[in-house]
């Protein structure tokens, strides 16, 4: 059953993305990296965007920050409603005021995000100097407070360190300190723990979760790791070839996935304690975005694909419980409860 659930006007929605399309105009053709993406995120909520490389998850994050390199990239249509306005239309000056103050982003590799020749305290303090107009010494003082809030040991001393003198986990904590300095409404984290070891990943995720819950910061967590999703997220959007193919709460996603891609991905994970002889695997390769098939982009790899899938791209199906997916022949896992 497909129905359009009426959306109550919800004041707690921090960000609403509608039909976002970000395309790259390259010599090999138009790459539709993000091609019609809709989602929203509320105060204090953790929304995961999962997908494999090339699925468009990082470009989605960059589009929200208006950081897509142009040329070759361009947001060709859609709305990004944030703080009462549409960021797609926002000017460069407006975006500079928003970035770092109301919306921040952290990346996979903190070493390439930090300036190697400036001290950590100075870099974290820059946010205060730029957005709040604080003096250098006051900004440094606030920076030390932020480093302390991210549980960096001896923050006074660490503020005087250069990035290379910090471990990977400490650098990512410094990035988090910088991103959250002005208490933004939205934090976008693109694979924030992928470069870290498991024991350090556990620490950094715990920190992000605690801080975001305490401050009611909305967190958009971009990752390829289903374990991270299970640990962190309230709701999840699964991306494949530029589109959100499934969108639901985290428990439904893992227990009753509707899209064959989600189901295949979950089955193919090596799980501790499973003692399998063979891993179930998704056959084939992710599609090339310059040569997307007609119809559903997943059809060539899909065990359930039929002629219709190869001809007509599936529209979004919305179930009453908020579960959304794009598939002609979804798994019967999440049947609409009979009224």
């Amino acid at each position: 059953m497909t129905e359009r659930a009426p959306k109550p006007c919800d004041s707690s929605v921090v960000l609403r993305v509608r039909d976002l399309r970000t395309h790259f105009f390259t010599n090999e053709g138009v790459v539709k990296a993000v091609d019609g993406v809709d989602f929203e995120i509320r105060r204090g909520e953790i929304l995961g965007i999962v997908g494999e490389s090339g699925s468009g998850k990082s470009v989605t994050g960059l589009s929200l920050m208006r950081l897509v390199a142009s040329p070759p990239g361009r947001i060709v249509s859609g709305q990004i409603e944030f703080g009462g306005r549409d960021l797609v239309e926002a000017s460069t000056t407006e975006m500079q005021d928003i970035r770092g103050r109301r919306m921040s982003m952290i990346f996979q590799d903190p070493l390439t995000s930090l300036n190697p020749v400036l001290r950590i305290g100075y870099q974290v303090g820059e946010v205060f100097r730029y957005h709040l107009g604080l003096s250098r010494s006051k900004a440094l003082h606030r920076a030390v407070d932020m480093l302390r809030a991210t549980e960096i040991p001896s923050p006074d001393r660490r503020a005087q360190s250069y990035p290379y003198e910090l471990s990977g986990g400490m650098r990512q904590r410094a990035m988090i300190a910088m991103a959250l300095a002005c208490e933004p409404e939205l934090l976008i984290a693109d694979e924030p723990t992928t470069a870290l070891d498991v024991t350090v990943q556990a620490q950094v995720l715990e920190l992000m979760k605690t801080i975001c819950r305490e401050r009611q910061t909305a967190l958009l967590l971009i990752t390829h790791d289903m374990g991270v999703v299970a640990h962190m997220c309230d709701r999840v959007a699964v991306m494949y070839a530029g589109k959100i193919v499934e969108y639901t709460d985290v428990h439904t996603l893992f227990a009753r996935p509707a899209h064959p891609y989600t189901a295949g991905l979950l089955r193919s994970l090596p799980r501790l304690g499973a003692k399998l002889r063979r891993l179930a695997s998704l056959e084939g390769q992710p599609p090339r975005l310059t040569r997307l098939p007609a119809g559903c982009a997943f059809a060539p790899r899909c065990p359930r694909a039929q002629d219709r899938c190869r001809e007509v791209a599936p529209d979004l199906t919305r179930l009453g419980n908020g579960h959304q997916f794009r598939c002609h022949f979804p798994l019967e896992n999440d049947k609409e409860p009979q009224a």
Partner: protein
Amino acid sequence: MTPLLEVRNLHKYYPVGRNSRLKAVDDVSLSIQPGEVLGLVGESGCGKTTLGRVILSLQPATSGEVVFDGIDVLSLQGKDLRRLRRRMQIVFQDPYSSFNPRMTIGAALSFPMKVQGMHRGNEEERAVELLNRVGLDGSVLNRYPHEFSGGQLQRIGIARALTLDSDFIVADEPVSALDVSIQSQVLNLFKDLQEELNLTYLFISHDLGVVEFISDRVAVLYMGRLAEIAPTEDLFGDPRHPYTQSLLAAVLHPDPTLEKSKPSMAIEGEISTPIDPPPGCRFYGRCPKRMDICRVQDPPMVSIGPRHSAACWLHA
């Protein structure tokens, strides 16, 4: 059974500055039976890659012994070493940087055979046979590495490691650079080949799920030292070293009900660089169960059960 590979008291130190040494591999002993898969896990910088490379004599050891099928690997040079290389091969993490971008796949696969004078005149035939075995066909011979996806190129990397009919393969994080859906395909391939050809692997990975799937036994490395080694079931079911326990507790399971209910198990601190490490257990600073003796004296490797050993004073 005599082990295929035996590593005895292996050390690999790198000089750092004037008087310091980085102890990348510090007194490691282990053995691998023919046809066995030994998983090697640990965090970045723990020495797992160095250990693999020293075993293959790609880097000289500081001291210690590596015995492969009765041959003392570290004493070999020149022609003898080249001869041994037929039997020991490696698959790297990043397939794009382990292929010459200007060599076709056909040339890359024939090259080892030409160097070793094997399958003379039939190199191409042999290459196609191997490509078929890893799920590709002969049409790729004239193509270049950049034309392939990471998963396809890693399959070719595996084919290359098999060109010389080797029986021992060091696989150094061979699926870490691959997407999740591709990872499982390549892992299955590793397992199938191992069973069909009775290969012996040293399978290096930081991913505990991957290691559990592929390995018969698992060794845990921490700052150049072996912390624990045990059959896979025992290591995952009954880990005895506090580091192994912390590592397993930090793994995130793809199961939200489990994940959201479990308490935070994060241990403090991070692995540090083993430059002139102080005496005592390498894990002392982070260990939730540390005792006084751990700070002053190195824990010995003690046997806990059949083929299960751990280097920890709790069990000494």
